[in-house]
C-alpha cells in the first residue's frame, strides 16, 4: 500500500507509534526468554542437560533434577483435556450457530462467554471441594490426573466453542445457502462443507486451548494431587510443570530455584513448539 498511496504526516506519526508498540511487545517476549535463561544457567552449567531426564527422582534439595514425570503429566493432562473438550466445544458451536432456535442463540453464546471469564481458581476450588470427593468414592484420593483433565477440559471448552463459532461465522454464507439449495440435509452441509471450510480456524482455536491448558497453574495445583511420579492409571496423582513452580518457588534457593526456572524454560519451549505447529499446519492447509 505504501508504494501506491503517499503517507500523510499523521500516518507517519501513527506508524512510528505502531512500530514502537510492536517492538515493545516483542522486546518483552525476548526479555522474558533471556531472564529465564539467565536464571537457569547456574544449574545448567553444573549438570548436563540429560540429567533433567535421567536423574532418579525430583529431589532438588538433594541434587536430583528429573523433570520428565512432570513433563509427562503436563502433556497427558493437556492432551486428555483436549480429547474431552474438542468434541464438546465443536458440537456446542455447531448447535449455537446452526441448530439453536433464535431466542436461545444469543443467550447461549453469552453463557459460553461467561464460562470463559470465570477465574481458574474458582474452577480449582470447585474441583477440590466437589469433583474430587465425588471421584474419591470410586477411587481414593480423588485428586488425580483424571480430575485435572476434567477441570482443564471444562476450562478450555469455552475457548474451543467460541473460536469454532468464530470460524463458522467466517465461512461465506453462500456456501451454506448454495448447498441447501441443492437439497442437502443440514447435517450433511455442516459435515461436508462448513466444517472443512472452517478447519483452519478451529485448529487455531484448539492450539490456543492447548496453550491455556499447558499454562494453567492454580486449578491444576488444587486437583492433581501433585505427587511427582509417572501415572500408571488416570486415578494416580500427578504434578505438572506449572504446579511444580508454584508449589516450590516461594521457598526455593540456589540450585533448587534455578531448577524451577529450567522448568519454566521447558514450558516456554513447549508453547513455542505449539505456536510453530499452528503456523506449519496453517501453511500446509493452504
Amino acid at each position: 500500500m505504501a508504494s501506491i498511496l503517499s503517507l500523510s504526516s499523521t500516518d507517519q506519526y501513527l506508524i512510528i507509534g505502531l512500530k514502537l508498540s510492536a517492538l515493545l511487545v516483542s522486546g518483552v517476549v525476548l526479555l522474558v526468554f533471556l531472564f529465564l535463561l539467565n536464571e537457569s544457567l547456574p544449574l545448567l552449567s553444573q549438570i548436563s542437560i540429560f540429567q533433567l531426564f535421567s536423574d532418579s527422582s525430583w529431589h532438588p534439595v538433594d541434587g536430583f533434577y528429573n523433570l520428565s514425570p512432570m513433563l509427562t503429566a503436563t502433556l497427558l493432562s493437556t492432551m486428555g483435556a483436549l480429547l474431552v473438550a474438542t468434541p464438546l466445544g465443536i458440537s456446542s458451536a455447531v448447535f449455537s450457530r446452526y441448530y439453536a432456535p433464535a431466542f436461545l442463540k444469543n443467550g447461549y453464546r453469552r453463557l459460553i462467554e461467561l464460562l470463559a471469564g470465570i477465574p481458574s481458581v474458582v474452577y480449582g476450588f470447585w474441583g477440590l471441594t466437589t469433583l474430587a470427593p465425588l471421584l474419591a468414592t470410586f477411587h481414593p484420593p480423588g485428586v488425580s490426573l483424571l480430575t485435572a483433565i476434567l477441570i482443564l477440559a471444562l476450562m478450555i471448552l469455552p475457548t474451543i466453542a467460541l473460536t469454532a463459532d468464530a470460524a463458522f461465522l467466517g465461512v461465506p454464507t453462500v456456501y451454506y445457502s448454495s448447498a441447501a439449495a441443492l437439497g442437502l440435509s443440514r447435517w450433511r452441509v455442516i459435515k461436508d462443507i462448513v466444517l472443512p471450510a472452517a478447519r483452519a480456524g478451529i485448529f487455531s482455536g484448539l492450539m490456543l486451548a492447548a496453550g491455556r491448558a499447558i499454562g494453567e497453574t492454580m486449578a491444576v495445583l488444587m486437583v492433581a494431587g501433585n505427587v511427582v511420579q509417572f501415572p500408571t492409571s488416570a486415578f494416580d496423582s500427578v504434578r505438572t510443570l506449572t504446579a511444580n513452580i508454584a508449589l516450590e518457588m516461594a521457598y526455593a534457593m540456589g540450585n533448587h530455584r534455578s531448577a524451577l526456572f529450567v522448568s519454566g524454560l521447558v514450558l516456554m519451549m513447549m508453547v513455542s513448539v505449539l505456536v510453530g505447529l499452528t503456523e506449519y499446519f496453517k501453511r500446509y492447509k493452504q
Partner: protein
Amino acid sequence: MKKIALLVFFVIAASFYWGVFAENSVSNESHKLILTGSSTVAPLVAEMGKRFEALHPDVRIDVQTGGSSRGVNDVRNRISDIGMASRALKADESELLSFTIAMDGISVIVNKNNPVTALSRQQIVDIYTGKIVNWQNVGGNNSPITVVNKAEGHSTLDLFLHYFNLNNSDIKADVIIGDNQQGIKTVATVADAIAYVSIGSAEYEAGHEVNIKLLPLEGIAASVENVRNQTFPLSRPLNLITREQPSGIIKAFIEFAGSEQVNDIIDGQYFVPVKH
C-alpha cells in the same frame, strides 16, 4: 530503522537497570538494618519490617533468606545486623544472643469422622513411609490411608521430617500440597486423609466447623496454648540473633518484633505469639 530499534531496546534495558540502581542508592542515605537467615522467619520479619519502617521513616529494613545457618554465620561475621533462625542456638553458638519473637508448631490432622483419636510417633512414621496403608491397622475403619505431604522447601516439611527423623525421599505420599489451607481442605473433603499443618491455622479452622480434628502427640493436645507454653513437642522457636547486647535501632527493632504490636502479623502467618 535498525538503528532506531537498537536504540529503543537499549533505552528499555537501561531503564530496567536504572530502576535497580536507583533503589540501592536511596537506602544508603538513611539507617539500614540488614537481616539474613531462615526462610521460615524471613516472611514474618519482612512484614514486621514494613510496619517498623512506617513508624520510623528514616529506617530501611533489608531482609534476605538463606537458612538458619546463614543467619548465624552472617551475624557472627558482621555481614548482617540481626540473624534469623528457626531453631534455638546450638552449644557452639553460645556466644551469640537470641530473642524469641514467635513459636511455630505443627499438628497432625485427620477428618472429623475418622474414629482414630490418637497416633503414636511410630505409627505416624509407618503411615508416612508406607508401612501402614490401612486405617484398620491403627484402630480405624477398613479403608486405605491417603497420605498428604508438603511440597519441598516448606518449613513445616523441614520441621516434620526433623522431628520424626525422616528423609523426604522415604515418604510415600498420595497427595502433595502447597499451603496449610490446601491441606485442611483436602483432609476436610477426603475422609481417609492424614496431613500435618501449622497449629494456628488448624485450630482456627477446626473451631469454625471445618471437618477436621487435631491429633494429640505423645499425649499432649495440639493447641496454640501448648505451643506457647512450650509443652507441645512438635514445635520450635523463631529467633532473632545478635552478636552483642543490642542497642539503638537494633534494640528498637527487636523490642518491636517481640511486642504485642505485631501479634496480628504473627497470627496472620499461622505462627504463635510468645507470652508477654
